[in-house]
C-alpha cells in the first residue's frame, strides 16, 4: 500500500515538469513580441527600454536558461513579480487560492450530498416517474452553462427576495455568514454539472450492485430493504464514483474561473483572466501552473483514495 502511494506521488513529478514546460512555451511562442505588446506597441520605445523590460521579465538568455531560472524560482516559492504592480506573484496567488478552494469544496459538497441520494432513488425505483425525471434532469444538468445558471440565480434572488450577494469579498474567518452568503450562489452554479454526473454515475453503479449475489443473499437472510440499499449496496456502488471526482475537479475549476468573474470573487480564475487581459505574463504563467498542480495533485489523491477503498487496485 505504501509503495503504491509513493509510486503514485512520484509519478506526479514528471507530469508537473512536463506541464510547466508546456505553459512556459505557450507564453513564449505566442505571436508578437511580448515586450512590444507591453510597451503598448510604442514605436518610440528605445532599445534600452526594451532591454530593461526584457531583463525585468526574465526574458534574457536562451529558452532553457529562462525556463531554468523560472522553474528554480518556483521551487523556492518565487514565481516572479507581477508586471503591473511589481507585487510578487506568489503573494497574489496565495491570496486567491483559498477563495477558489472554498468555492470548489462547497460545490463538491452540494453535488455529492444531493447527487448521491438522487442516484440511489433513481436506481431503486428504476423506470418509475422519479427515475425518468432524474435522468432527464441529469441530461439537462450537463447541458446548462454554469455562467447562465449564475445569471439566472442572481435574477431570481433579486426579483423574488430583493437580495443580491455582497460585492466585496469577506474572508470566512472574519465573518462566516457573510462569506457563505457570497459563495452559495456561485457554488450552486458550478455544482449542477457535477451533481448531474454524480447522479448518473451512482444510478448506473447502483443498478449493477443491486443485481449482485451478495445483495440477494442479504435480502434472503431477511435484512431490511433500507439496510440492504444503504449498508450493502451503496457502499460498494460509491467506490467507482470516487474516480470521477478527480475529473470533476477540472470541470469545477473551469466553471469557477467564470463565476468568480460574475460574482467578483478574487480567486485564481479571476486573477488569471485579469492577468490575461492585462498581458501580465508572470501572473498568467504562475496561475496556470498553480491550477495544473492543484488538478494533478487532486487526481493523484483521488487515485490513492480509490486504491485504499478498493485494495484490489493497489495490489493488482
Amino acid at each position, binding site marked *: 500500500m505504501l509503495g503504491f502511494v509513493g509510486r503514485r506521488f512520484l509519478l506526479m513529478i514528471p507530469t508537473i515538469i512536463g506541464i510547466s514546460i508546456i505553459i512556459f512555451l505557450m507564453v513564449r511562442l505566442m505571436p508578437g513580441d511580448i515586450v512590444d505588446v507591453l510597451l503598448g506597441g510604442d514605436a518610440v520605445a528605445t532599445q534600452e527600454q526594451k532591454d530593461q523590460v526584457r531583463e525585468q521579465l526574465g526574458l534574457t538568455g536562451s529558452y532553457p536558461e529562462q525556463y531554468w531560472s523560472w522553474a528554480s524560482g518556483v521551487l523556492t516559492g518565487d514565481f516572479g513579480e507581477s508586471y503591473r504592480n511589481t507585487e510578487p506573484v506568489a503573494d497574489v496567488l496565495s491570496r486567491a487560492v483559498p477563495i477558489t478552494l472554498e468555492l470548489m469544496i462547497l460545490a463538491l459538497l452540494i453535488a455529492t450530498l444531493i447527487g448521491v441520494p438522487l442516484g440511489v432513488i433513481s436506481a431503486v425505483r428504476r423506470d418509475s416517474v422519479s427515475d425518468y425525471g432524474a435522468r432527464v434532469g441529469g*441530461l*439537462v444538468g450537463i447541458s446548462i452553462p454554469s*455562467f447562465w445558471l449564475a445569471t439566472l440565480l442572481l435574477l431570481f434572488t433579486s426579483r423574488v427576495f430583493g437580495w443580491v450577494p455582497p460585492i466585496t469579498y469577506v474572508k470566512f474567518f472574519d465573518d462566516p455568514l457573510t462569506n457563505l452568503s457570497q459563495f452559495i450562489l456561485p457554488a450552486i452554479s458550478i455544482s449542477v454539472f457535477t451533481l448531474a454526473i454524480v447522479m448518473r454515475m451512482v444510478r448506473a453503479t447502483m443498478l*449493477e450492485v443491486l443485481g449482485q449475489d451478495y445483495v440477494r443473499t442479504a435480502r434472503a437472510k431477511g435484512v431490511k430493504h433500507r439496510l440492504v440499499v444503504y449498508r450493502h449496496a451503496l457502499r460498494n456502488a460509491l467506490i467507482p464514483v470516487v474516480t470521477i471526482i478527480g475529473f470533476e475537479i477540472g*470541470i469545477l475549476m473551469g466553471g469557477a474561473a*467564470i463565476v468568480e468573474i460574475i460574482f467578483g470573487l478574487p480567486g485564481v480564475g479571476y486573477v*488569471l483572466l485579469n492577468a490575461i487581459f492585462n498581458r501580465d505574463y508572470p501572473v498568467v504563467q504562475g496561475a*496556470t501552473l498553480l491550477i495544473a498542480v492543484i488538478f494533478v495533485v487532486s487526481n493523484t489523491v483521488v487515485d490513492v483514495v480509490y486504491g485504499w477503498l478498493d485494495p*484490489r*487496485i493497489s495490489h493488482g
Partner: protein
Amino acid sequence: MSNPGLEPREPPLLATEAVADAFGHWTAMPRQRLSFLGKWRNPIGLIGAGIVLFNVFIAVFGKYIWTLDPDAQDSDRLQAPSWAHPMGTDELGRDELARIIHGATVSLQVGFIAVGIALVAGTLLGLVAGFYKGWVDGILMRLVDLMFALPGLVFAIVIAGLLGPSRRNAMIAIGIVFTPAIARVVRGSVLEVMGFPYIESTRALGASGRRVMTRHLLPNIVAPLIVLVTVYLGSAILAEAALSFLGLGTQPPEASWGGMLNTARSYIDAAWWLSVFPGAAIMLVVLGFNFLGDGLRDILDPRLGPSVGGGL
C-alpha cells in the same frame, strides 16, 4: 462493466472514460413499442436529432424568415418582448430575436470548425500512435497525458487569451483542447483493429503503412468517432459561449450567445429577457447534441465510451 470495482482502475487522467461508463446505461427505455423507428429505439436520440436539425435550419435559413437586421440600432431600447420584438430589444435597440438567430449561425460555425480541427489533428495523432506503437506511441501519448493535466476550459482560456481575443483564436483554442481526447479514442480503436487478422493479411500482401492506415484502419474506427464528434460539437458550442462571455471569443458588436449574456449582466434588473433567451438557446442546442450523442451511441456501439459533456 459487469462488476464495478473489480475492474483495474484506469490511470487517473483517464477519468473521462470513467465518467463515460455512467453514460452507457441509457438502455432502459421500452424497446418493443418503438420498434417501428427501426434502429432509433432510444427516443432521447430522436429528440436530440430534432433539436439539432432545428438549430441547423435556424442557423442557415433563420435570417430569411425573421428578416430584421441583427445589427440595426433603433430608438426602442430595452423593450420587453412584444409582437414586434418577440424577444425584446437590447441596450442599443437591436432586435434580440434577430441576434439570437445570428448567434445560432456563429455557434454552429465555431462548433464545426473547432471540432474539425480537433478531429483532423486527433485522428492523425491517434492513427500514427496506434499504428507505429513503440516509442512513437510512447512520446505521443505522454504528450496527450500532459495536455490532460490542465482543465479543458482553463486551457482554452489561456490559449485564446494569449493568441488574442477573436473568434478565430477561440476556435483554434477549442480545437487544440479537444485534440488529445480524440487522439486517445482513435488510438484505442486503432489498437483494437490492429489485432484483427485482416490487417496482418494486408501487410503480408505488401500494403504500405499509409495504405493500411487510410484504407483499412480509418474506415473501421468511424463509428466511435461519430459519437465523439456529436458530443464534442455540443461541448465546443458551450466552450465558445463561455469564451465569448469572458470577452475572449466573438467580439462585439457582432452577436454571439455568450457575448450577449455578458452584456446582459449590466441590465439584469432592467431587462430580464436579455439574460434569459441567449442562455436558453445555448442550453437547448447543447442538450440537443448530448441527446443525439446518446442515441447514436445506442445504435453504433452500446459499449462505446466517450463522455457526454465532452472535454470541458
